[in-house]
């Protein structure tokens, strides 16, 4: 697969000291923000017993597995094993890292050796992430004004006004997620309800 930046969430949904599940083209990720705000995306699998690290918890600058409490530091290396407190864990116990940056309120992930920066989405504000049971083609069919393949953009009529809408698509194991952004100063509730309506129309196209 061609390495590329994929949006895996919105900054507003990942406060400090929180971990969440993410995804990059077939790879499950644990995306987490440390107590000081450092953002990272790792393979979502504890090297010990394979537990999802996204079920774990952030303490300070480390991510701990929920299963046996193995603690991983900023470089992905295991720093502490509670059942063997005197042991310095060998450097081979390391979680694989992905490139992870946030820009314009969107969290982007790519393979660790990814060159270049993610797409710029200026003059927009993040709205919400929404999951769908259909594919991008059904979304485009439901709203022909939308242009693009991975980043769908349109100016749509919402209430009395034309509103700028941008939907960043992410394919994952549970289906499609759209990370929605809207114009700065837009009525967020109105645009959020429009996105919900778009989802109903797109999913209905598939069911029909």
């Amino acid at each position: 697969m061609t390495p590329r930046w994929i949006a895996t969430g919105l900054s507003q949904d990942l406060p400090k000291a929180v971990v969440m599940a993410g995804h990059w083209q077939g790879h499950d990720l644990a995306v987490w923000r440390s107590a000081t705000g450092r953002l990272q995306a790792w393979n979502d699998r504890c090297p010990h017993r394979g537990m999802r690290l996204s079920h774990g918890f952030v303490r300070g600058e480390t991510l701990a597995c929920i299963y046996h409490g193995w603690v991983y530091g900023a470089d992905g290396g295991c720093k502490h094993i509670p059942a063997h407190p005197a042991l310095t864990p060998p450097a081979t116990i390391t979680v694989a890292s992905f490139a992870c940056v946030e820009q314009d309120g969107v969290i982007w992930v790519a393979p660790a050796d990814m060159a270049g920066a993610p797409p710029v989405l200026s003059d927009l504000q993040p709205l919400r992430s929404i999951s769908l049971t259909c594919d991008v083609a059904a979304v485009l069919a439901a709203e022909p004004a939308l242009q693009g393949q991975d980043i769908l953009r349109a100016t749509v009529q919402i209430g009395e006004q034309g509103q700028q809408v941008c939907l960043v698509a992410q394919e994952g194991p549970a289906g499609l997620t759209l990370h929605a952004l809207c114009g700065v100063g837009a009525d967020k509730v109105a645009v959020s309800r429009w996105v919900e309506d778009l989802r109903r129309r797109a999913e209905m196209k598939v069911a029909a």
Partner: protein
Amino acid sequence: MIKLYDYVLSASCYKIRLMAALLGVKMDHEAVDFHPGRAHKSVAFAQLNPAGTLPVMVDGAMILTESTAMLVYLAKLAGPDWLGPVDAKAAAQVQHWLAFSGRLAASLGMARLHDMLLYQGDIVVWREQGHAALRELEAALTERRFAGGEWLVGDTPSIADIACFPNVALSQDGGVSLDAYPSVRLWTRRIRALDRFIEMPGIHRLHELSPAPKVA
């Protein structure tokens, strides 16, 4: 003293234990052998609750068999702030979420009973209905966040939040992931961070809120 007929793995029983803990109310607990004994369906138990459901709350001559009614009772007794704001819209919204919690129990709750306690039924439909309910909850909590709100109704947690929390937090036991619902996830974290929060099997506290255990 209030007596609660209780089962440790029941989401609805935990709802009452959690509310009582948050309010600092002490109750007597009588464990009912829900699984595998099905004691709640026995003739003896029908004297207490003909519907054969848990939890059951007894205070003097009063017997309550609906968990949302128990939340109202505990809040009225020990923490009226938990009833939510008193204006007409907020009061109606609290009632909305109390009723909505019944939909969560009938979908996510049934999916969990299917997967954990061998209930028979259509697991595909229960999970679909669970996702439909979670979509509604996500939309509502997201709109609350746009306005700076952290709770379902008003500026502080209420019985509306406690009514909806258990079956949502336990959804993965029934094969329904919360990965697609960021506002719901952050809301469950806020409830788990409340002072005097208690756990149940499947719902753990936020370990990051307490210091790392000291090694001897």
